[in-house]
């Protein structure tokens, strides 16, 4: 009954299961890692809003906006130098309009800081997210700014409605 070839077949079957399990675990770890990073990213974004609002309380809104970005810029330079990242040399090829997007941050930070002062972090983030997603579907719908044209889907409209409902519930 138990001849050699049978036994060998059994072994390769085991090996198959083993490699499948390892692959599955690797994928699980990757997903877990990605999830943790994404959650941390959200935490940092909220932390940033709060920190900017707190700093602006003491030294003023424009001072706070300029300071966080200057120190962030210095750190970004250090990272680029450490990684020996030379891709900045190609910045000249980027269309001027797209390259100047960073300047919008002045208005973004001003509105964020003022809105947090006026209505708290939760409501500010809720409305920021709604505006962000609505703007995204409009840009995608018309394919503006070299984005791939995408139709607005029904679930996206329901999603935005749900968010607006959430903001209303939050406020009343």
């Amino acid at each position, binding site marked *: 009954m138990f001849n050699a070839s049978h036994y060998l077949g059994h072994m390769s079957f085991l090996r198959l299961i083993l490699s499948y399990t390892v692959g599955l675990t690797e994928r699980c770890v990757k997903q877990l890692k990605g*999830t943790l990073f994404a959650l941390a990213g959200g935490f940092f974004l909220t932390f940033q809003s709060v920190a900017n609002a707190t700093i602006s309380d003491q030294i003023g809104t424009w001072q706070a906006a300029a300071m966080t970005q200057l120190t962030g810029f210095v750190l*970004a330079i250090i990272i680029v130098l450490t990684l020996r990242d030379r891709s900045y040399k190609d910045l000249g090829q980027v269309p001027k309009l797209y390259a100047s*997007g960073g300047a919008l941050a002045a208005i973004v930070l001003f509105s964020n800081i003022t809105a947090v002062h006026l*209505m708290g972090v*939760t409501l500010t983030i809720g409305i920021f997210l709604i*505006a962000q997603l609505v703007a995204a579907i409009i840009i995608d719908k018309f394919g503006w700014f070299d984005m791939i044209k995408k139709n607005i889907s029904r679930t996206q409209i329901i*999603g935005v409605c749900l968010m607006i409902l959430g903001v209303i519930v939050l406020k009343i």
Partner: protein
Amino acid sequence: MVIGILLALLGGTLVCLQNTFNANVKKQVSVWSTTMLVLALGFLASFAAGLAFEGTALFSFDADLWFWFSGVVGVGVVACVTQGVQSLGPSRAISLVMVSQIFFGLVWDSLGWFGLEQVPFTFQSFLGVLLISGGVLLFQLGPAIEEKARGQKQRTAARRTVKVNG
């Protein structure tokens, strides 16, 4: 209140515009070079606006030591979001980032950390945040699910045709 809402709508729209522009920058250079450029221009624009609105009063401020490290947070955002997108893909990662953002907002408002005015936690505010999160997830993951459902329907339709022919 109305001013706050209008400013948040303006800010959110500009965040989207900036993300779109940055996506185009990233087609040519790395994430960190993009971040470096974006922060440099953000600083220059804020500096110019401060000078325009406040003149030399812009320079008279008394900063705590930790203020000078606040930029680290922005760099942390870029690092975490980039890693998340690489492991999970854009729609799943961004939806998680947004849900995490709004939940931490609620935690922060409720605890009143960092000299922020405390907003008492209520069941209603929790429900509001839950609805917003549901909306974000539906928005980001809905299209893919719709597509899949459509594909399945097409496949069943095809199978049906085969059966009829058979």
